């Protein structure tokens, strides 16, 4: 028995960004009222779907790559303990220091203390979902350390005092005109003649961050992949802010969820083909940095790797739900999701929005804390088809719906419906009762008024099929 070492545990409350303030339907209702948001999201997701579809179409072996990616992740999860230990050995042998963080609080404390030990009070950050998940920025600020987000979309979010709404493009809910306004209002030293041309806006971010890159001694990053066999870490990015953070500072601290492991160097050949095409719709993203420990004379001479659990072991304990840990954070499932496209990411309450968020967040926190998310889907299945590692999100959603606490009234309705349908005579009687009631005015009382607010119900037919059949 190994359970004496503790059972899998969900992410703690009171820290991090995995729980929303209100249930999905209420948050979605507000978002749906924002026409600008709908237009921005519709435009952006349509663009990325077309781009991604085109470059995926160039690969005749896309399905074979997906199959391999899926199997590699299943293999990784099944062998996670040995692979993590192997990674630690390799990173340590290459001059890095590995830390284990059981939850968000521990990870925040480790990173804060590591920064404090350098004597510096500012860090530059490469976009990282894991650090957003644990609320690292808030923890650093509380300790008097300034975190500077360097990814353009993160910068837009940070300057706009906003929240991220997409895994890959956290400011996807903003259009160019809104970004220009945020820059004009919040970016010190910005050219007042700034236009809303994307090239001009990108140039403004370049000028604004340049001095910070050159003078900051500590960086915090996430990781897209970690190779157990070699101890190599990989960060995929576009702008070069990642290269800046991974190359210029003296100290680099990487925070990584334990599921980011890949067994061997060769295995990267699958993920490096899947991720850029599914994610930004590029054959390859502009920059990928790979490093193993410390390279004397090149890049940061102090490297720390923080391995984060924060509920992942609880996800792993669920045989159906654990495939959510296969996610490589490409965001393809968000980009094809008809629900996400209309509500945007904030409605999901967690840093992980969209279809993957709807299955990952409730598992990380325990379903009670995100009980509405498994229902935030029409089960249309577009996410499953888009996912480069073939995560069967609809099946996980259906599975999790069995675990959430159900409203009492609904339980009663469902139980009696099942009983009726298991008794054909009762069933036929119920059919006739429905026919006779003739829902007057075609508007129903709650909870069915959700339907009749915007749609008519069909007139019940004069006779059911089985009556007709019986008379034949």
């Amino acid at each position, binding site marked *: 028995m190994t359970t004496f070492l503790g059972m899998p545990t969900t992410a703690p409350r009171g820290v991090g960004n995995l729980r929303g303030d209100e249930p999905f339907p209420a948050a979605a209702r507000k978002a749906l009222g924002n026409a600008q948001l709908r237009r921005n999201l519709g435009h952006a997701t349509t663009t990325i779907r077309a781009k991604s579809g085109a470059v995926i179409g160039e690969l005749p072996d896309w399905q074979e790559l997906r199959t391999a990616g899926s199997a590699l992740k299943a293999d990784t999860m099944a062998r996670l303990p040995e692979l993590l230990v192997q990674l630690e050995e390799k990173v340590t042998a290459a001059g890095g220091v590995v830390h284990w963080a059981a939850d968000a609080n521990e990870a925040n404390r480790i990173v804060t203390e590591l920064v404090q030990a350098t004597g510096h009070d500012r860090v530059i950050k490469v976009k990282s979902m894991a650090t957003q998940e644990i609320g690292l920025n808030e923890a650093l600020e509380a300790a008097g350390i300034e975190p500077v987000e360097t990814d353009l979309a993160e910068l837009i979010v940070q300057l706009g005092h906003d929240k991220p709404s997409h895994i890959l493009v956290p400011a996807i809910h903003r259009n160019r005109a809104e970004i220009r306004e945020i820059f004009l209002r919040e970016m010190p030293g910005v050219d007042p003649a700034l236009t809303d041309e994307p090239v001009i806006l990108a140039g403004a971010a370049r000028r604004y961050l340049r001095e910070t890159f050159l003078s900051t001694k500590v960086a915090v990053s996430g990781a897209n992949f970690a190779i157990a066999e070699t101890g190599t870490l990989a960060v995929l990015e576009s702008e070069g802010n990642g290269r800046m953070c991974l190359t210029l500072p003296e100290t680099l601290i990487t925070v990584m969820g334990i599921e980011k492991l890949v067994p061997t160097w060769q295995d990267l050949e699958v993920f490096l083909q899947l991720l850029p095409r599914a994610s930004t719709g590029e054959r390859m993203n502009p920059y990928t940095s790979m490093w193993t420990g410390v390279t004397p004379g090149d890049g940061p001479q102090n490297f720390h790797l923080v391995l984060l659990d924060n509920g992942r072991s609880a996800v792993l304990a669920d045989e159906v739900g654990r495939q959510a840990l296969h996610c490589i954070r490409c965001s393809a499932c968000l980009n094809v999701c008809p629900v996400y496209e209309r509500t945007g990411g904030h409605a999901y309450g967690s840093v992980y929005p969209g279809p993957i968020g709807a299955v990952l967040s409730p598992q990380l926190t325990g379903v009670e804390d995100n009980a509405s998310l498994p229902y935030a889907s029409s089960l249309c299945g577009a996410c499953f088809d888009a996912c480069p590692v073939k995560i069967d999100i609809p099946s996980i959603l259906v599975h999790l719906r069995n675990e959430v606490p159900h409203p009492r009234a609904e339980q009663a309705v*469902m139980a009696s419906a099942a009983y009726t349908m298991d008794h054909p005579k009762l069933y036929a009687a119920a059919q006739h009762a429905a026919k006779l009631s003739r829902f007057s005015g075609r508007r129903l009382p709650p909870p069915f008024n959700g339907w009749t607010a915007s749609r008519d119900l069909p007139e019940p037919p004069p006779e059911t099929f089985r009556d*007709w059949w019986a008379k034949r």
Partner: protein
Amino acid sequence: MRIALFVTCLADTMFPAAAKATVRLLERLGHEVVFPAGQTCCGQMHINTGYQKDALPLVRRHVRTFAPYDVVVAPSGSCVGSVRHQHAMVARAAGDEGLAARAEDVAGRTYELSELLVDVLGVEDVGAYYPHRVTYHPTCHSLRMIRVGDKPQRLLRHVRGLELVELPAAEQCCGFGGTFALKNADTSTAMLADKMRHVLGTGAEVCTAGDSSCLMHIGGGLSRLDAGVRTVHLAEILAATEAA
């Protein structure tokens, strides 16, 4: 061929026209249709709403009812999807391996209407006549769960008098999703609004699909708008003839 009709609870109760059309069509093609008594509902609503345990007796009933038949047809991609992809899972979750095996066996002989026609019976021209401008909505479960592909369109293209017009963004969900339409009514309505905009943009008189549920949703919205576009099940179009 002797074909057992799995009518589905929705078609039985609310849309018998689609079920009757299925019978007429198959009989016209020279097949014998039987209606196994004792069938009610596949349990999909329970399963998809998180009431898998309540669905277990329904799965058991469905498997018992259809086990004696070689070929089962349903005029619904969604219910066939549930039979194929969920019944064995429900049985397994309840620890009943025997039921799971029987469920898989029945699922292997259960077809959605367009699958039955094209794959099993080998017909694409069913001899139908339907002189209308029609657009086809490929429902999510037909498209992505059981992957009927372009079989419905192939059948529709052979219908005399029918003008098939392409539906923009056809593969996007109409927003029905079973209890999703109740639990997330606002989001569902927003999805429906876009679907209706696309349907109306085609100038079609009729919007068809292989699922009464999605048609009820789209049709309910169109009716509220008084849009003048009707929703008609694929089976009804394929059953229509010049004589009728």
